[in-house]
C-alpha cells in the first residue's frame, strides 16, 4: 500500500512518523509484524496513504475541487483535503480514534446487497434484536449491518429471507457505526474539541447527516460518526443536488462503484 508515495512527500511522511512513533512507510509497504489487520494500525495507515494520494491528485489536477466527502475514516481525509483540518491534527485524532474503536470488541458486520435500506431497517425491527443496527447506507441496494456478533448473525438470516437479499459477513473487529460504539464517544469528543476546524477551501458533505458540514459542528459530528450509520447515499444525493456530476476517488474505486449504484 502506497509504495513510492512516501518518497514523494518526505516531510509529511516524517511528520507522520513523528506523530505515530513508528515508520509509516514500513507499516504500509512491508508490514513486517502483520499489524495492518489491527484497527489501531490500519486506520492511521489508510489515512496517511489517502492523504498523500489526495495531495498528489490535487497537485496533478490543479482544477478546483469545490466539494469533498469521505466514507467513515475517509471523512477525515475529506476534511484535510478541503483544508478544514490540517494533516497533523487529523492524524492525531485518527490515531486515537483507531485505538478507541479497537477497544470495543465482540462485534460483527455484514454487507447486505440486493434490497433497499428501508427493507433492511424493517427486517431489523421485525427481529426485535436490540444490539444490531444499520451501519452503512452505501448505495440503493447496498447497506451494512453491525452490532453484537451473534445478533448480526441472527439478523442476517432474517434479512436473507427477503427476496433478492444477499448477506455477506465482513471481517471487522467491532460494531462500528452503531450505538454499541457509544462508550468511546466522550473521549473521542474530548480529543476533537482540542482541534481547530478552519473554514476551509471547499465544502465537505458529512457522512453523518448527509448535509454540508459546518466547521463549527465538526467535533460533534466526527464524534457521533463512530456510533451513527454512514449516510453515503444521502451524501451523494446532496452532492448531486448541488450540481456535482464527476466524482474523483482518491484511493481505489470502491466509492465510485457505490456512487454508480445510487439512482
Amino acid at each position, binding site marked *: 500500500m502506497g509504495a513510492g508515495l512516501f518518497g514523494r512527500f518526505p516531510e509529511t511522511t516524517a511528520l507522520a512518523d513523528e506523530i505515530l512513533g513508528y515508520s509509516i512507510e514500513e507499516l504500509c509497504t512491508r508490514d513486517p509484524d502483520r499489524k495492518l489487520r489491527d484497527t489501531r494500525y490500519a486506520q492511521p495507515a489508510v489515512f496517511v496513504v489517502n492523504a498523500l494520494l489526495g495531495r498528489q491528485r490535487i497537485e496533478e489536477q490543479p482544477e478546483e475541487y469545490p466539494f469533498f466527502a469521505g466514507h467513515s475514516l475517509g471523512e477525515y481525509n475529506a476534511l484535510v483535503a478541503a483544508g478544514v483540518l490540517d494533516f497533523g491534527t487529523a492524524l492525531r485524532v485518527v490515531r486515537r480514534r483507531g485505538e478507541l474503536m479497537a477497544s470495543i470488541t465482540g462485534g460483527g458486520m455484514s454487507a447486505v446487497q440486493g434490497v433497499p435500506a428501508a427493507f433492511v431497517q424493517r427486517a431489523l425491527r421485525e427481529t426485535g434484536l436490540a444490539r444490531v443496527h444499520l451501519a452503512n447506507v452505501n448505495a440503493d441496494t447496498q447497506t451494512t449491518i453491525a452490532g453484537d456478533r451473534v445478533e448480526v448473525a441472527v439478523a442476517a438470516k432474517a434479512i436473507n429471507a427477503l427476496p433478492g437479499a444477499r448477506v455477506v*459477513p465482513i471481517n471487522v473487529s467491532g460494531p462500528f457505526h452503531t450505538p454499541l460504539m457509544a462508550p468511546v464517544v466522550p473521549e473521542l469528543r474530548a480529543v476533537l474539541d482540542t482541534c481547530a476546524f478552519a473554514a476551509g477551501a471547499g465544502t465537505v458533505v458529512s457522512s453523518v447527516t448527509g448535509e454540508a458540514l459546518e466547521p463549527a459542528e465538526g467535533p460533534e459530528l466526527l464524534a457521533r460518526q463512530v456510533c451513527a450509520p454512514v449516510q453515503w447515499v444521502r451524501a451523494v444525493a446532496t452532492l448531486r443536488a448541488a450540481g456535482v456530476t464527476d466524482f474523483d476517488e482518491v484511493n481505489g474505486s470502491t466509492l465510485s462503484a457505490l456512487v454508480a449504484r445510487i439512482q
Partner: protein
Amino acid sequence: MSVAIVGTSVELPGVDGLDDLWRVVSTGTSLTRPFPQRRREALSEYVHYLRATTVEPIEDTGLDFHHGCYLDTVDSFDYAVFGMTPRQAVLTDPHHRMVLRAMFLALEDAGYSADRLRGSRTGVFVGFATNPGSTYMDYLSRVEPSASQQAITGNIPAMLANRLSHLLDLRGPSLVVDTACSATLVAVHQARNALLAGDCDMAVVGGARIVFAPVKHPHTAIGIESSDGVTRTFDEAADGTGFGEGSGAVVLKRTEQALADGDQIYAVIRGSAVNHDGHTDGITSPSSESQAELLLAAWRNAGIDPRTLGYFEAHGTATRVGDPIEHEGMKQAFARHTSDRSFCAVGTVKANVGHLFEGSGVIGLLKAVTVLRHRMLPPQANYVTPNPKLDFASGPLFVPTALRPWDSPQGPRRAGVSAFGLGGTNAHLVVEEYQATPPPPSAPGEHLFTLSAATPRSLTGLLRSYLRFLDEDGLAGVDIADVCHTTRVSRSAHRYRIALAVTGTEDLRRGIEGLLADGRQPPVEGPLAAEAARYLRGEPVDWRALAAGRDHRIVRLPRYVFDESTAWLDFPQTWRQTMSLERAAERHPVTHDVELRPAPAPLVDPTTQARVLALVDPATGAEALLAPALPPGSLLVRLGEPVTPGGEVFDTDGVAALDPLAQLVEEQGVTHLVYALAFEDTPAPDVEELERRTAKNLHGLFHLAKALMAAGAKLDLVVLTRTAVAAREGEPGVVTENAALVGLGKVLVREYPYLRVKHLDVDPAVPVPALRADLLAAEYGLTVLRGDQRLREVFVEVPEIEPTVVAEGPRPYLRSGGTYLITGGTGALGLAVARDFATARPDITLVLLSRSGLPPAEEWAELLAAAPEGPLAGRLRAVRELTEAGVTVRALAVDAGDPKAFGEAVTRIRQEHGRIDGVVHAAGLPGGSTLMFRQLDDFDAVVRAKLHAAFVLEAATREDPPDFVAHFSSVASVFPAPGQADYAAANYYLDNLARARAGGDCHVIALDWVAWKEIGMAVDFGTNGDTMFKALPTAVGLAVLDAGLRSGRSRLFGGELNYGGDLLHLLRSYDVGLSPEIEATVAEHLEAHQARLARATEKIRSTVAAVVVRLEGRGEGEYTDTEASVARCLALAFGYDRLDVEADFFDLGGDSLMAATVANNIAVCHGVPYDVADLLADRTVAEIAYHVEELAEYDVSSG
C-alpha cells in the same frame, strides 16, 4: 546420447521390488489365483446394487469373479507421507495412490528425497486410462454423492502426474499418457524424448492398475480375457490374457548426467520408437507390418544390429490373433537384418503376473532390466505345448523353458521390450546392460548414517527392514560410505529421525539393534556430532561437506516402510432398505386453470386492533359503500383533498405525491390501508378514459407501493375495486381495466414481505359486515364478493385436455382464405404460432405485427449473407418458409402499446382484407427491476403492450369481431416473481378480460404460459429452466394453444407442475388456493422431500456420532461436549483420529470445498444456523464450539 534407468520400484501380488520380480520370473511362476475373499466381500453388495439399478434389468443370479493376479489389498494408504488428510486419501482413486507410491519409491531408490528434488527440473510421466463403468469415482459417487466434489482432485487422471509434481515441487513436464495397453511404455518413450530434448533433467515414469470388480459378465468382456485367468503366451492352449494388478515405476536420466551424479545405473535405454497401426481391419486389429516397422525404427534409433539382441520381452497377450501377428512382425523385422535362427530368447511377463493393461509396459521393461542384471534367460511361464502356428524353429526367436545363462561374448547384453495398445499405438524400447566400474574404496573411519520417517511406526519398520537387509547380506561388497551417503541424501527428509556414526556394516547392525531395543536416539559423539545434532533437530544440513573428497555413489537400500491405514469408503450393506426402486412414473397434466370458487367467510380475530386508513376517489361511490364498513376511528382521505388538515393535497401523480400519505401511515400507526380509488362502476368507454384510469388507479397504486416501501412501512394493503373482476364467465358490465391492480398487488408481497396485500372486488350488494370482515381478516390475495357470495381463487388441473402433440387434421378455428393477425408476430412465439397455422392452413393470410417489423424484402438476401446465424436471419428464414408454404405474409412495424398507431393498423388490415378472422395477441415486453427501482415509463410500457393493445383491438373490431382472440398471458398473473409488477398487472388484465368475454360472439381465450423451454422471452433472459413448473417445450405449448382454441374455454394455464423440483414448496406461499387434487399431490411430494431431508439429517448425525476422535492441545485435558461434537464433525471431514483443539481448519488440510460440508454438518449436528462464513472465521475446534454454544443459547433464550 542414451538414457539411464537410475531407480526402480515394482509392486505386484507377492512382489515388492526388483528382487522379488526376478524370483517370480526366473522360476516361471504364475501368480494367477481367485479374487481375494476380503475384496470379494467388500464388493459383492456393490455389484448387487449395480445390477439392481440398471435400466435394463440384469438377472442377479450370483457372483462369479474372474481369476487373475490380484493384490491382497488396494484399500490402504499412508496419507501423511503424501501430504493428504485421511479423508482425502479415502476419496482418492486407488490407482492414484498406487502410482504416487510407486513413483515415490522409485525416486527414493534413485537416491532422491523431497529435499533433493524440490524445485528440480524433474518430469513426471504416467501411463493411465480410466476404464468406463468401474472407476472408484463411480463407486464414490454412488456411496456418498455429497463427496463427489471433494473427490475431484483425487480422481481426475491428470492429477496422477500433477499431484506428485505439486507435492515434491517438480518443475518438469507432468502429464498422463493414454494409449491403452502401451501407455506406460509410450510414457517411457516420451520421458526419454523429454530428457534428450532438455525439457527436464530427470524423469519418473510410472503406472498402476487394479481391477475394481472383476465380475464375470458377458457384456463386459472385450474379447482378450483368458477363460481361467491364466496367460499362456505362445502356448497352444492360449486363449487370452489374465487380469494383473500392481504398479511400477522407473527413474530416468541422461546417462552422462547419471554418471556425474554418482547414480546407480540399472540399465541403459539405447533407443525407442512409437508408431501406430494405421488403418487395419478394425480399430483393435493389430498389424504385423506396422509392428515390424516399429522394431526397425527402434533399432535404427538405438544404432544397433538386432543380431546383438539376446532377449525379447514381447507384448504377448496370449490371444489367438495377437500372438501370431506379433511373432510374424518380429520375424519380418529380424529378417531384414539376419537369417540366423533361434538366437534371441523371447518371453513375456504377462504369463507371470497377468496383464496390467496401461501399466503393463513398465512391468515388461522392469522384467527386461532384471534379466539383463542377472544375465540369465528365464523360462516362459505357462508354456507347455508350443503353438504350432508360431513356428519358432524357422525364425530368430526361441522360447526358453528353463532358466539358463545368457552369454554375450561379443559385447553388452541387449534386450527389446514391446507394448501394443488396443487402439493401435505401439511402442518398443532397446535396453542394454550397464557394467559399472567398481568405485575406489573409501577411507576407513566413521560415517554418518541417517534415516527418517513420517511416523514413529514407519521408523521402527524401517529399522527392522534394514536389519533384515543386513541379515540377507544386502550390503555385501557395498562400501559403508556409499550406504551412508545414500541414506543421507535420499532417506532423511522426514520428521522422525535417527543418526548413527558407523564404521562398517557390523557397526551399523549393532547401532540399529540398539535403537530398536532402547527406542531412543543415543548421542552421536566425535567429529560427526555437530552435523548429527543439527540433523536430529530437524535443521537443514548440507551433506556435501560430509561427502567431500570422494565421489560417492547411490546404492540400493531397503525402501521406505509406509504407515498405512484404511482408505476406502465402505459400501452400505443396508442399501436395499435405504433406496426405493419403485418410483412410479407419475403423470401430471400440463393444463391448468384458476377458478373462482365459493369460500367460507374469513375468520377475524376479534382482538385485532385495526387502525384503518381509506383512500377514496370522491368521483366514485367508494366512500358510500366503504364508510359503513370501516371500524370506528378509521381515517379517510379523499383524492384531491388535503391528506392532513391544511396539509398537502392527495393525488396520485408521482411517488413524491404519496410521501405525505406514507408519513401519515407511520404517524398514525395505520395497520390497514384501503386503496379504493379504482371504484368506477362502468367500463371505460374509450381510450382516453382508459388512460385516465390507468394513470389514476394503476399508476397511483404503483406510486403508493413505492412510497410505502421507501418508508419501510408494515401493514395490510387492501385494494378495493368494484366489479373489476369477472366473478363468473361472461359476467356483464365488468370494469376490466381495474383488474390490472390485482396483478400488481400479487407482486408487492413477493418483493417486500411487510406489505401484505388483499384485493377485494365487490359489487354494491355486498353486506357491510362481510366487507368489514374481509377488510380486517388475515386472509390475503384476491377475494370477490358478490352480494352474500364470497369467491376465492383456486388453481385447478384441467386434465381433460391432453395436449402432447398438435392434433392432426383440420383446424376448425382457421378459415380457408382467412386473415389472421399475430401481434408480437416476428418474435419467437409469434413465429412458432405462424408456422403452426401455416402448416395446418397454407391458404391463409398472416399479418405479423411487431414493433420492429421486418426489413424490406429486397434487403433480405444481403442481411442473410451478412449474419447468417444472427437472430434476424432466423426470423427472415422463418418468414420465408411461411411464404414458401403458400401463406400470404404481411409484416407491419407497429407498436401494439401505442393505441393510436395500433388502432389505425387494425382498421387498415380490416379495410384491406375485409375482416380479421382471428388474432393471437402475443406482443409483450418483459418486466424489469423490482418496484422500488422501477420507473413509471418502463412500468407503463410493459402494461400497454398487453392491456392497452387488448382494449384497442376490441374497440377496433367491435362491429365485426374476429372468430377468436387468443391473448398470451403468463404464469406471472397467478404465481408472479419479484420484478414482475407490471407484467403481472398486464397479464391479469388479459386473463380477466377473457373471462368477462366468455360466451360472446368472439372466442376470447387467455393462455397463461409458464416459461417456454426452447424459444421466447425466457430463453432470451436465461429463465427457461424448470422452476415451480417445468419449462414448456414448443410442441407442447402449440398443442395447448390448439386445444384451447378448439375448446371454447376462456382460459388455459399451460404448464406442468414440477413436483420433483426443489421449488415446489413455493406453490403454497402464494395467496392462491390449490385444488384438493393438487394440494394432495403437493403434500405427498413435500412429505417425501421432508422425509429425505430428515433421513439426510439423521444420517449426518449418526455418521458424526460414530466418529471417534481424541481431542488434545489443552494442558488440563478438559473439553466441553460441544468441543467434542465439533471435533467429530471436523474429524469426519479430515479422517484424523486426534485433533488439536486449537488447530486451524486450513492447517489441518481444509479447503473451501470442504468448508461447506463441514459447516453444514456442524449446523445439523448442533441444530444451529452455522454456515461457511462462520467456519472460515472461527477456524478452530475451540472457537467453533464457543460460537455454536452462543448460537444455541441465543436460540433457547429467544424461544
